């Protein structure tokens, strides 16, 4: 079955440190890939997406993600986190077979001052 795995439920990072959030998917072909962010009590905001082409994609708020086909991964990165990045981050995929997003369980990012 198609699935998305975010292995880290929580991650704590010091302000100014670099960040990497992991996402792995289980699907035969390369799906469309997304990262969303949800601040507490808010809706989800699209950070970035990958459809094809350059495997390193840039998003909003200084985030980037790298697609690695060999590892079925789409990890999210930021060189230096800010306290305002504290939120929950969701990875999602759309398989070619349908148009429905398959969601990871989310990773909660905690920023230490």
């Amino acid at each position, binding site marked *: 079955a198609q699935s998305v795995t975010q292995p880290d439920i929580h991650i704590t990072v010091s302000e100014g440190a670099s960040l990497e959030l992991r996402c792995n998917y289980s699907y035969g072909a390369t799906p469309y890939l997304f990262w969303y962010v949800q601040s507490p*009590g*808010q*809706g*989800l905001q699209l950070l970035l997406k990958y*459809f094809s082409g350059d495997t390193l994609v840039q998003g909003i708020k200084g985030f980037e993600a790298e697609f690695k086909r060999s590892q079925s991964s789409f990890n999210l990165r930021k060189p230096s986190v800010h306290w305002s990045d504290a939120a929950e981050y*969701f990875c999602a995929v759309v398989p070619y077979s349908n148009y429905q997003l398959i969601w990871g369980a*989310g990773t909660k990012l905690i920023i230490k001052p």
Partner: protein
Amino acid sequence: SQTIHQWPATLVQPVGSPLSLECTVEGTSNPNLYWYRQAAGRGLQLLFYSIGIDQISSEVPQNLSASRPQDRQFILSSKKLLLSDSGFYLCAWRQNDRAYEQYFGPGTRLTVT
């Protein structure tokens, strides 16, 4: 530009009472529309999606129903709320037959007491 609205923002209802949550999208036509629920500390659960007026698919059997009386209006209802219906309800839209990312509303926090 497109915007999505949800109301109410918060709602406290007793067990057994009815429910109506509304979602409207502006600035687009014939969108795909989605209702999700987030239980406390959990990920996204797709409840319903709609590809057109009166075309609604249910993903999870439950105490809820959805209707789409107009092209850009999506309503989530219940005749009798259960305690387990508490959660954060998110509406989302996707541009029909185009890119696959979904855009989310601000959400409704429902507490069933």
